[in-house]
């Protein structure tokens, strides 16, 4: 950023005599204009559309939709699912990062690739694998049925699909960060007599806390917003197995556009809060967020 100031418009001269390592002023404005148009068309307008369409019939109808019991149960289910899936993947992420970043062992690269696997699987397939696993045609399906255990078209299935989809988020954030930090801090703590858990709580965790928060933030956004995987396993039972994104779909397909967009507003607000927190973390703790720019 500092060299920007020096090369563009830092002094009056640069406007008259162009620095050889910057573009012509017109090219610069052209590119900025092009980029802004693209961002406006593909990012800002869709976001604006969500809020405008939700308020189309005034705030009265907006709040009526939001106080509907069905909306309420969708919000509740979304919170429950994220509340289970995120902590599970948080524990997994820390364990995976500890094993991969602090130790050298055979097959480490392969393990890292396996952890990234859910990113290259279509959300629909992520949901479908659980249908094949627990459905009535599967090996354990009949056993589950005879014991009255409901996994598909119920909360457990939705949680499983969400865990699958959000599996890599925390680990992916922590692995490069902990690799960068190395093991010398932990070695010092251990040599001073700290136990393994003490070392983790008082040395490692403070070192990685912002990176961890960053990973949790992204994991949570995806967990609350997941659509494809959850849609396949949920069965779309109104008031029971509909998460907020599914509720949006149902309302939209019923041509109840204002209601669909009203629920969508909540999800869009969640996205905005996520983006703001993410930017704040990147600004304040950039040195502690390793992969912030390397998704």
């Amino acid at each position, binding site marked *: 950023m500092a*060299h*920007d100031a020096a090369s*563009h418009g830092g002094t009056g001269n640069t406007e008259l005599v162009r620095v050889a*390592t*910057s*573009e012509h002023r017109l090219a*610069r404005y052209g*590119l*900025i204009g*092009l*980029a802004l148009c693209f*961002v406006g068309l*593909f*990012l800002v*307008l*869709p*976001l604006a*559309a*969500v809020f405008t369409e939700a308020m189309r019939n005034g705030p009265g109808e907006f709040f009526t939709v939001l106080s509907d019991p069905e909306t309420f149960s969708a919000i509740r289910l979304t919170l429950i699912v994220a509340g289970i899936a995120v902590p599970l993947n948080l524990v*997994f992420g820390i364990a*995976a990062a500890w094993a991969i970043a*602090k*130790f050298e*062992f055979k097959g480490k690269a392969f393990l890292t*690739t396996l952890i*990234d*696997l859910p*990113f290259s*699987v279509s*959300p629909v*397939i992520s949901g*479908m*694998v659980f249908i*094949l*696993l627990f*459905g009535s*045609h599967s090996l354990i399906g009949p056993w589950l049925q005879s014991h009255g255990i409901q996994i598909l078209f119920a909360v457990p299935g939705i949680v499983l699909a969400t865990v699958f989809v959000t599996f890599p988020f925390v680990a992916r954030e922590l692995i490069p960060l902990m690799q960068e930090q190395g*093991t010398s801090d932990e*070695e010092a703590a251990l040599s001073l007599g700290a136990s393994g858990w003490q070392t983790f709580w008082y040395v490692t965790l403070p070192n990685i806390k912002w990176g961890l928060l960053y990973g949790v933030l992204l994991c949570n*956004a995806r967990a*609350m*917003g*997941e659509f*494809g995987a959850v*849609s396949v396993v949920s069965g779309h039972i109104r008031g029971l197995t509909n998460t907020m*994104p*599914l509720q*949006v*779909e149902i309302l*939209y397909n019923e041509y109840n*556009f204002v209601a*669909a967009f009203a629920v969508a507003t909540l999800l*869009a607000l969640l*996205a*905005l809060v996520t*983006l703001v927190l*993410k*930017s704040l973390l990147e600004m304040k703790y950039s040195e502690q967020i390793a992969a912030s*720019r390397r*998704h």
Partner: protein
Amino acid sequence: MTARTASLWQFRQPSVIPGFGLALGVTLSWLILIILIPLSGLAWRSSALGWPTFWALATDQRTVNALRISFGTAFAAALVNVVFGVILAWVLVRYRFPGKRVIDAMVDLPFALPTAVAGIALTTLYAPNGWIGSLLAPLGIKIAFTPIGIVFALIFVGLPFVVRTVQPIMEEIDKEVEEAAATLGANRFQTIRRVLLPGLAPAVLTGFALAFARGVGEYGSVIFIAGNLPYISEIAPLLIVIRLEEFNYPAATAIAAVMLVISFAMLLIINTIQAWSRRRYGYGA
């Protein structure tokens, strides 16, 4: 226990840091339970179909069309994203303008905004009676409910992958390289084309591959804007959902298996590009 494994076949290098067994144990059990068992179930189901059945299902005309639409639109969207993603990354890294920080943060919107919300918002914009669609309709241009609509949704979904892959590499570019090119008599366009862009190529390729891979599997943002006409604007993930709803598990399995094989091939290509660029340029994308 870990000490014994180490002495037996040097599974890991010795270390004073504790907790290897526990951490790896938790990691492996979670990985096997949540990811590997469900995915191998899919592999097992598709192999149980037998090759002739699998081939017949995979080459069914509707399936072939759906796969072609998914891969074709994802490819087109990734191409658009490469062009605008590189421009956007360049503008964010090199120029100063009001609102730059906001634009930078907005680039991640597709990561944060649930796909279903993106889908209905884009449909509202580009439907024939929508904000932008109504301006284009008199010109005879139709975006929503055609394959172009799918491309638009996938542009939205894939944009951050290109920007966020290219941006850090652009930030690392040494200004001296450009100065050297300029002193040797290259004009600005030549410097960018012959000096800067080749160095960015691995990152651009990785970004392209990531956006493409994401686009192929994308479901939520596409189904609202696609129109979902079989053979014309029906994507492969939607066809899987339709087959599942018909309880036609063999057909769904076959489509999923084809998609997974191609996606894993993509993953392999990405890793190869990254390894190659690390060797050649000293940094990964």
